[in-house]
């Protein structure tokens, strides 16, 4: 008789609500039921009012961790539909932001993975170094997360030339930290015992479930949109696609750690190659037609599809986030594992439920437009907070 161990929806393993029903016998998992939808914000009625520019803001809030991959894919899709290319400097800035985000995301995952297996020191240390990345991003964009940098046709802010040396030195500081983790994680015998041979996703299964990103690359499926379908100017920089063959949790971690080195490499090359120039084409409209944008998020390929009917609003907007396919692959990777391992396997794909349940569809049929820009929103919230504070009597 099998018992059910629920993981979620509110579970310390995941920051977001998600419900995994682990059917177990003793400690062994025999079946996994995935129930999602707690985070589904299905935004269409609201999104009907979003203009092309606002869509970028909107997709940024699909997910906080990969908060620039969705805009990246989004601007790719719009530029594909419009048949234009952003200025070169803007492309490099986009690449820098994307790669910084990749580092931040991988460090974040590494820390959380450490937390999941009770190794809080790794958590603390990796998040300590993540702060460096956040600082750089804050310098570039003005925010630690949700940078609001991208728009169709360019970027919103230029990187100031006087900041570049500081950025460069900050990024350099990451290398010793990465070396530290490489040593601490990849050589630790206990981590080996916990992660090697655990939750193996074979190459066949990886292909059957069409997984993407590090999850696929750890299973010997060499896909990386940056190389296969170069967007921005990834074809002008030199980097390796890390592919390992084990498919277990350890390889998934190793792929991510090694990828961070490549990201640092890309950032430094981009900083070198960047020439002064304009950063925005100020596109006025998107012509009717379809556009497909892809970007390699930290978790894998982000896929956006947009349909324009020539108006200021997209007629259809479709997002496929990497976790959408990766989480589903847990269905096989968890079977036969112990409960303790299953939790780790679930975490190892770096699931991002926000992404999975995005469903952002932008439609222009109704005209319930409410023009609230990002800043106005924040102001509104500030006002509201003030009111509440007043009502509560706090100054």
């Amino acid at each position, binding site marked *: *008789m099998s018992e059910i161990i*629920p993981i*979620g*929806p*509110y579970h310390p393993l995941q920051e977001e609500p998600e419900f995994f029903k682990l059917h177990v016998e*003793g*400690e062994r998992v025999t079946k996994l039921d995935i129930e999602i939808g707690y985070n589904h914000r299905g935004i269409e009625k609201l999104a009907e009012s979003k203009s092309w520019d606002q869509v970028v803001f909107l997709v940024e809030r699909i997910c906080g961790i990969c908060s620039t991959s969705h805009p990246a894919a989004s601007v790719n899709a719009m530029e594909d539909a419009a048949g234009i290319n952003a200025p070169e400097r803007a492309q490099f800035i986009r690449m820098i932001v994307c790669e910084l985000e990749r580092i931040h995301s991988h460090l974040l995952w590494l820390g959380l993975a450490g937390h999941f297996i009770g190794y809080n020191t790794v958590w603390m240390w990796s998040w300590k170094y993540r702060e460096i990345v956040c600082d750089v991003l804050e310098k570039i964009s003005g925010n630690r997360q949700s940078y609001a940098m991208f728009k169709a046709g360019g970027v919103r802010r230029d990187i100031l030339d006087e900041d570049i040396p500081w950025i460069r030195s900050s990024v350099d500081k990451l290398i010793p930290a990465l070396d530290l983790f490489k040593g601490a994680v990849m050589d630790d015998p206990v981590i080996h015992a916990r992660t090697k041979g655990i939750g193996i996703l074979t190459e066949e299964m990886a292909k059957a479930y069409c997984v993407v990103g590090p999850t696929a690359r750890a299973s010997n499926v060499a896909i990386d949109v940056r190389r296969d379908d170069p967007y921005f100017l990834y074809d002008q920089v030199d980097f390796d696609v890390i592919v390992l063959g084990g498919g277990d949790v350890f390889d998934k971690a190793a792929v991510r750690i090694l990828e961070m080195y490549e990201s640092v490499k890309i950032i430094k090359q981009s900083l070198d190659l960047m020439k002064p120039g304009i950063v925005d084409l100020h596109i006025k409209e998107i012509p009717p037609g379809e556009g497909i944008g892809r970007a390699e998020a930290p978790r894998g390929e982000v896929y956006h599809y947009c349909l324009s009917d020539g108006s200021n609003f997209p007629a259809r907007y479709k997002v496929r986030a990497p976790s959408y396919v990766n989480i589903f692959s847990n269905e096989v990777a968890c079977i036969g594992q112990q409960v303790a391992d299953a939790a780790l396997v679930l975490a190892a794909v770096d699931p991002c439920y926000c992404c999975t349940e995005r469903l952002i569809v932008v439609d222009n049929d109704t005209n319930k437009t409410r023009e609230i820009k990002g800043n106005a929103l924040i102001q509104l919230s500030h006002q509201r907070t003030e009111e509440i504070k007043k009502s509560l009597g706090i100054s």
Partner: protein
Amino acid sequence: MNPILFSIGLPVVLGCLCWMVSGRNRWLRESLTIAGSLALFVIGIRFFISIPAPVLWGQVTLFSLDALGSMMLLACGFFGFLIALYSIPVMRDAEMRSAYYSAFLWTLGAAFGVILSNHLLLLLFFWGMLAVTLYMLILCGKSQTASESARKALIIVGGSDGILLLGIFCIYALTSTFEMHLIRLPLDGGLAILGFVCLGIAAFAKAGAIPFHTWIPDMASSAPVPGTALMPASLDKLLGIYLLMRMATRLFILTPVFNTALLILGTVTILAAVMRALVQHDLKRLLAYHAVSQVGYMIVGIGTGNPIGFAGALFHMLNNTIYKTGLFLAGGAVESQAGTSDLDKLGGIGRLMPWTFVTFLVSAFAISGVPPMNGFVSKWIIYQGLFEMNRSGNSLWIIWLAAAMFGSGLTLASFMKLTHAIFLGTPGRDIQPGRVKEIGLLARIPMIVLAVLSIGFGIFAYGGPMRHLILPSIGEVDYPGIWSPGYATLMVLLGLVAGLLIYGIGRSNQNLREQDSFIGGEKLPVENRVTGTGFYETIQSLPGLRFFYRKAETRSFDIYVQGSRLVAAITRVLRKSHTGVLTFYLVWAIAGLVLLLVWLMGR
């Protein structure tokens, strides 16, 4: 009439009466049983207070009683009475009640006979009678497997009777007497050792020590619970250990080799049986394996070969009988109320059967050796015996000590699982408040009495049971250490009070609120529950143990199954000659005739 003969004859006669009472007259049969067992209990008390004169037949002492025996009689009478009380409500629906009550009374009579016998052949007679009544008791079970397990028990226990006979004749060959009080054999010759081993096998088979334990779990799962509580849990333990005690203290003079052998067998019994118990899915089988495991402690105690160890073994025997019977009774109560003993289907009964739960919990703590219960004290005295070995320069004591302590950890583990699977945890589908309720008062009394005894024997061990029950048969012993259970208990209570004070500061009873359990914010459907049977699968699949568990599953350690396999193999060889061709038989017959002729001519 001589009181000794009366005490043996009475239950036998009453048993026959029971047998004759017509099937519908339930009431009369039950009163006969109660009266008989109560009478035996009273006789036990009387014999304990004043030991009766031996029964002589010419110069031969047929029956006699000493301090050890009188303690045993008291215990037998006591448990017999309690289980008789318990049987009334539990056996009400059983099909073969008449046979059960007769067998019950005959069992008691035979047990008295064994203890009272001074003559080895009489002992053998009663010993064999017990095997027969055991067979009857098992057959009273409703289960399909009853006849199979009854046969198994009869073959193992009855077979050991044959071996006992052999042993008795070995002894007779050496000493030319059957009277036990005259025998004191040194273990120096082959025949003496053979006799010792034979008697030992008989005692082991009765007490259910490894490797002769396999009939107990099978019996437990098919026989009626009171029967299991009566035979393997209490009387058989008492008698087996009684015989072993007799052997170690009276009949033979042990040498260190045999002590070590006993210690090895004892520790193996403790560990192997408890390991099997860990992974059982059936309540009664699990308890039965513990019944086996606990014997190991007594054998270890006897194996120490010093008075403290003996005292510990005896005391543990007594305590074990108390809590083990308590456990079987509680388990039986659960089974009779819930209708199943499958751990997968039980759960959450603690709220529905609070008395049973509490008595079970007390007994479970006792068997796991949690201070200050009685199980701890007697184990503790056995450990003292092991330390005593150390003083006499034997450094192997560490192994026995570690194994015995580890065994009690394992016991705790399996009882935690059991407690969870039966009383705590989520209720099974059939466990509903209306359908399952507390068992009747008559069955509850024995359980409560036993639970109280478990605590009482633990707290007042030295002043009470040790001084009055055990030591008279051992003689004064010098404990190296005295664990003062009284103080410790008081302090534990004080700690509880202090904890309650902490609750009081937090005023937790006023701030009590009931809420559904937190399972990640999701509500689980009823059928999704943790039953607790799979808990120890991890243990089962450990590389070293996997082999043994697999072997145990295929019954490779079951002496009965292996024996019958051997017999089957032999007959298979013989069967090969059964070709069905007439000439073959002719050839065999002629060859046999020729051989016979040769043999006859050779004489």
